[in-house]
C-alpha cells in the first residue's frame, strides 16, 4: 500500500468514525423495555407475578391513538434501575401506543443536577423527570414544571388525600402542585442493640424524651482512638437542611422563619437549643470530630458498628439491612420539652412544561405513582418510604420491613413535618455559607453563640433569593 493510499484510507476512516460518533451523540437513549430485564435482586418471574396481581385501573385521560414516545429521567442506582425497567416493560404492555425511553443519571443528585440543569439550558428536558425536595423549587420557580392540578382533579382514582400530608408541600407554589411525591421518609433513630446492651442502657422506645436521648448518648460513648464508640454517628450541623424540626424546634429553637425570609438562629432560645447538642460534643465527643470523621473515611460510624445511634431518614434502612452485621432497630424520634417533631423529606416526579406529550406523560405518572406502582417500586423492594398511605400495609407485612417500620409509618402521619426544613431556592447558598462558620465550632475555635450570630449575618442577605424565587 502506497503512502498516499494509506493516507487516503486513514483519512476516510477517521472521517467516518467522527461522523458515526457525532450521530451517536445526537441520538437519544435506546428504549429500555423491549424485553423484560431481570437481575438476581429482581427476578423476572417475581416481577411478572407481582405485576399480574394488581388492578392497574385506567386513567380518565385517553391513550394516544398513534404511537408516541416519552422520555423519563430517573435517579436510581444501577441495581434499582432494573426494577424501573421492569415497571416500564409492563407499562408498555398495558399502553402499546406509549413508548418509554428511560434515562438514568445515577443516584448522585449532583450528577443528576448537572445533567438536567444543562439540558434545561439547552431546552431539551425530558417529558417526565425526577426531582428532589432540595432543588425542586429552583425548577418550579423557573417555570420548567407543569402545574398538575387540572390532571389531579380530573383523575377520579388519584385521591390526593391518600398522600401523606408532609410529602406534598415541597412541590407547591402559589397554591399549585407541580410534582407528585414518590417517596418521603421521616428522620428516625437507628440503634445498635449490642452497644446499648453493653452500656446497660434501655433500648429507645416511642415514649422517649430528649433527656432520655441525651442520657443514652452520653452513656454509650466510650473508648478512645480507633476503638472509640460514639453515642451518635454523625456530627450535628446546619448542613442538615432539616436540623430545625429534628433538633432545634423540639427544644424551642428555630433556624429560619417558616417562609425562609428571616434567620432565627441568633435568638436566645435557638442558641440554647444548639448548645444543648454541642455541649455533649464538647464534653464527651459523642459524635465524630472532623479528624475522627476523616479517620472513618467519611463513612457512617453506625454502619461500621462504631456508634450506638444514627439520626437519619428512614431511607437509610435498606442499605443498612445489606451492610450492617449487627442487630439494629428503628425507633421514633423523641419528644422535646417544647414539642414533638421530626422532618420528613423525599423526592417527586414532574411533567415538564415543554413536553410534547403531556397526556401520555400524565398516564405514565398516574400509574407510576398509584398504589400499585408504589408497591411495585417501593414496598416490594424493601425501600419503604411510600408517599401513598394505601401502599404501606404491603410494606409492613413484607419481610423487608425492618424492626420499627411501624414507627416510621406512625411518624410520617403524625409528628413528621416539612415546617422548618430548608428547601427554598437559596438552600445551597445557605448551606455553603453556614458550613465554614460551623467548621470553627467543630474545631473548637468558636463558641456557639458567636457562631449562631455569624451564621445569621452571613445567610440573612441570601434569603432574598427565596422571596424572589
Amino acid at each position, binding site marked *: 500500500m502506497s503512502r*498516499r493510499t494509506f*493516507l*487516503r484510507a*486513514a*483519512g476516510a476512516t*477517521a*472521517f467516518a468514525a*467522527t461522523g458515526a460518533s457525532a450521530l451517536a451523540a445526537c441520538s437519544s437513549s435506546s428504549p429500555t423495555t423491549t424485553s423484560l430485564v431481570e437481575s438476581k435482586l429482581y427476578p423476572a418471574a417475581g416481577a411478572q407475578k407481582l405485576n399480574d396481581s394488581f388492578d392497574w385501573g385506567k386513567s380518565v385521560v385517553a391513550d394516544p391513538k398513534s404511537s408516541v414516545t416519552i422520555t423519563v429521567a430517573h435517579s436510581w442506582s444501577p441495581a434499582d434501575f432494573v426494577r424501573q425497567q421492569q415497571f416500564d416493560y409492563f407499562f408498555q404492555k398495558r399502553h402499546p401506543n406509549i413508548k418509554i425511553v428511560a434515562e438514568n443519571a445515577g443516584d448522585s443528585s*449532583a450528577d443528576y*443536577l*448537572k445533567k438536567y*440543569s*444543562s439540558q*434545561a*439550558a439547552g431546552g431539551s428536558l425530558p417529558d417526565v423527570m425526577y426531582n428532589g425536595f432540595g432543588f425542586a423549587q*429552583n*425548577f418550579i*420557580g*423557573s*417555570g*420548567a414544571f407543569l402545574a398538575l392540578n387540572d390532571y389531579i382533579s380530573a383523575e377520579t382514582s388519584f385521591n390526593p388525600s391518600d398522600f401523606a400530608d408532609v410529602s406534598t408541600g415541597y412541590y407547591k407554589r402559589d397554591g399549585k402542585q407541580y410534582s407528585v411525591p414518590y417517596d418521603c421518609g421521616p428522620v428516625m433513630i437507628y440503634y445498635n442493640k449490642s452497644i446499648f446492651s453493653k452500656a446497660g442502657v434501655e433500648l429507645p422506645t416511642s415514649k422517649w424524651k430528649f433527656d432520655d436521648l441525651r442520657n443514652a448518648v452520653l452513656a454509650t460513648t466510650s473508648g478512645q*482512638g*480507633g476503638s472509640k464508640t460514639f453515642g451518635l454517628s454523625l456530627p450535628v450541623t446546619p448542613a442538615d437542611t432539616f436540623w430545625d424540626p429534628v433538633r432545634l424546634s423540639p427544644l424551642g429553637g428555630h433556624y429560619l422563619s417558616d417562609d425562609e425570609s428571616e434567620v432565627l438562629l441568633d435568638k436566645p432560645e435557638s442558641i440554647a437549643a444548639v448548645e444543648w447538642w454541642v455541649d455533649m460534643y464538647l464534653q464527651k465527643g459523642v459524635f465524630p*470530630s*472532623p*479528624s*475522627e470523621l*476523616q*479517620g472513618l*473515611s*467519611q463513612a457512617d460510624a453506625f454502619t461500621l458498628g462504631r456508634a450506638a445511634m444514627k439520626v437519619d431518614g428512614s431511607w437509610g434502612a435498606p442499605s443498612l439491612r445489606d451492610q450492617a452485621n449487627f442487630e439494629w432497630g428503628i425507633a421514633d424520634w423523641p419528644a422535646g420539652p417544647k414539642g414533638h417533631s421530626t422532618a420528613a423529606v423525599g423526592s417527586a416526579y414532574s411533567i415538564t412544561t415543554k413536553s410534547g406529550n403531556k397526556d401520555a406523560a400524565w398516564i405514565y405518572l398516574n400509574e407510576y405513582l398509584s398504589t400499585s406502582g408504589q408497591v411495585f417500586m417501593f414496598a416490594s423492594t424493601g425501600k419503604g418510604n411510600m408517599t401513598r398511605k394505601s401502599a404501606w400495609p404491603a410494606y409492613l407485612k413484607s419481610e423487608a420491613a425492618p424492626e420499627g417500620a411501624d414507627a416510621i409509618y406512625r411518624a410520617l402521619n403524625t409528628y413528621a413535618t416539612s415546617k422548618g426544613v430548608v428547601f427554598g431556592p437559596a438552600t*445551597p*447558598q445557605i448551606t*455553603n455559607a453556614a*458550613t*465554614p*462558620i460551623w*467548621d*470553627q465550632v*467543630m*474545631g473548637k475555635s468558636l463558641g456557639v453563640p458567636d457562631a449562631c450570630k455569624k451564621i445569621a449575618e452571613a445567610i440573612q442577605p441570601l434569603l432574598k433569593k427565596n422571596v424572589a424565587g
Partner: protein
Amino acid sequence: MAQVAPALETGTQGTQGTRRRTSKLARREARAFYGFASPWIIGFILFGGGPVVAALLLSFAHWSLLSTPSWAGFANYHKMFADPLFYKSIVNTIYFGAGSVCLGVVTSFLLAILLNQKVRGLGFFRTVFYLPSVVAGVATAILWVNILQPDSGLINSFLRFFGIKGPGWLVDEHWAIPGLILMSVWGAGNTIVIYLAGLQSISPTLYEAARIDGAGWWSRFWHVTVPMMSPVIFFNVVTSLIASLQAYTLVLVMTEGGPNNATLMLGLYIYRQAFEYFDMGYAAALSWAMFALIGVATALQFVLARRWVHYDA
C-alpha cells in the same frame, strides 16, 4: 533547516516570488493533514471555541440556567470584585498552584534522574512510579484522605515514630492546602516520563567532555543536566501550573472547600455558582477571571523563561 522547510512545503516559486504554486504531492499532503486534523478542529470549534465565546457573552448576563438569559452589563464583574470569597479562592488557588508546581517539578525531576540510572529492575521501578498517574482522581483523593488522617494516617504515624506530632492536615485550615500540595505530587508520573525523555536526549558527549574537564557529579548536574533540561522543565512548569490552577476534583472530594473555606479554589467556586446556585452568568465571569489568572501566570513564565531556559545544544 528552518529556511529550507518552506521551499519543500510550497513547491516551486515564481521567478519574481510573486506567486507560489504547490506541487500535486504537497496539495495531497495538505489535504491529508487537514483531513486528519479536522476532527480536532471541528471538535474544538464546536465544543471548545463555541463555549468560550458563549461564556464571554454569558459573563455579561444574568442566567439561572433554567430561564432565559438577560443582559446584565458589568454586574457580574462588579459582584466579583466585591465578593470576599472570590479573593479567598484566588489566594487559595495561587497558593496551591505555586506550591504544587514547585514541589511537583522538583520531586519529579529528581525521581526522573533516579529512574534514568542503569540499575536492575529499572522497568519495574518506572512502572511503579508511573502507576499512580493512571489511577482515577476520585480514587486517589480517597486514598490520600486516609494517608493524611491526623490520628492514624500514614504520614502522621511516620512522624510519630520520630517523636513528632503531625499536623491536622485536611481538618486544620492552616495545613489543608499544604496537605493538598503534598498529595498533588502523587500523580507526577506523566511529568516524570517527559523528564525521562528529556534526560535521554542529552548527548553523552557533553558529560564526557565535562568529565575530561574535571567536573564532578554536582558540576555535571548543574552545568550540563539542568541547562540541557531547561526547555523540558519550562514545559512541565507551564503545563503543571495551568493544570494546578484549575484544580477541582481532588478539592471537591477531599475537603469540599473546607475547613472554613481554607481550600476553596476558583474551580470549585465556579462549579458551585454554576451547578449549585444556578448563577451561570456569575460563574462565567469567574471563569474569565480564571482564564486571566492562567494567562498572566503563563505569560510571566514566558518572560522569566528568557533568563533561564536554554535552547542551544
